[in-house]
């Protein structure tokens, strides 16, 4: 029963988790390691999962924690590094400007912008994932956007 449930969770979420891990670490090997670690933790704690959040938000929480642990270990969490391999022809200048600005953001700001604007997560869910009070989500989001705007103005 649990085995089947675990397999289903892996099948449904491993790609998404790998992509989140990659966006946070910018490294394929680290992202793969984090993904494996996330699912090992899921397997270990699946019995105790009480369903207070959805599986997805629980997985995101473990992923961001694993990324944090990795950054702490390597002491490189000051800046997010975005690889240059994802260049597109459309709106290159605008896109690069945004990319450069995001590149200068701290990891926490990048993380919260990703969860809010790409994953369309609710503040309550973001609070659970990042393990912060719901009130802090709003302020952190505001700060992240302000930082991004500032970076874009400085660049441009």
């Amino acid at each position: 029963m649990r085995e089947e449930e675990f397999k289903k969770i892996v099948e449904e979420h491993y790609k998404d988790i790998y992509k989140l891990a990659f966006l946070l670490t910018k490294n394929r090997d680290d992202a793969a390691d984090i993904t494996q670690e996330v699912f090992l933790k899921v397997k270990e704690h699946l019995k105790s999962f009480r369903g207070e959040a959805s599986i997805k938000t629980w997985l995101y929480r473990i992923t961001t924690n694993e990324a944090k642990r990795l950054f702490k270990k390597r002491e490189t969490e000051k800046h997010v590094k975005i690889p240059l391999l994802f260049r597109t022809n459309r709106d290159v200048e605008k896109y690069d400007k945004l990319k450069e600005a995001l590149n200068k953001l701290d990891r926490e700001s990048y993380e919260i912008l990703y969860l809010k604007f790409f994953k369309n997560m609710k503040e309550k869910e973001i609070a659970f994932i990042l393990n912060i009070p719901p009130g802090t989500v709003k302020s952190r989001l505001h700060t992240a956007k302000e930082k991004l705007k500032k970076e874009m103005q400085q660049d441009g």
Partner: protein
Amino acid sequence: MDEELREFFKKEYDAIEVPHGLKKQILKGKNQKIYLMAAVSVSAFVIFILMLFAEFSAQFDSVINAITLP
């Protein structure tokens, strides 16, 4: 700004290629851990049995010596 961010993250996300075999690795990794735990348990049990044998054989030796010496 919000829309630009959404578009940016979408492009980045879509461009990421998930390594082939990652799913297998995840599922295998889990099994490997179980096998490793089983191997450790079996090894510990075998060592315990061998130690018991060693202990008993030493005792038998002393019993045999005690009988044969006089």
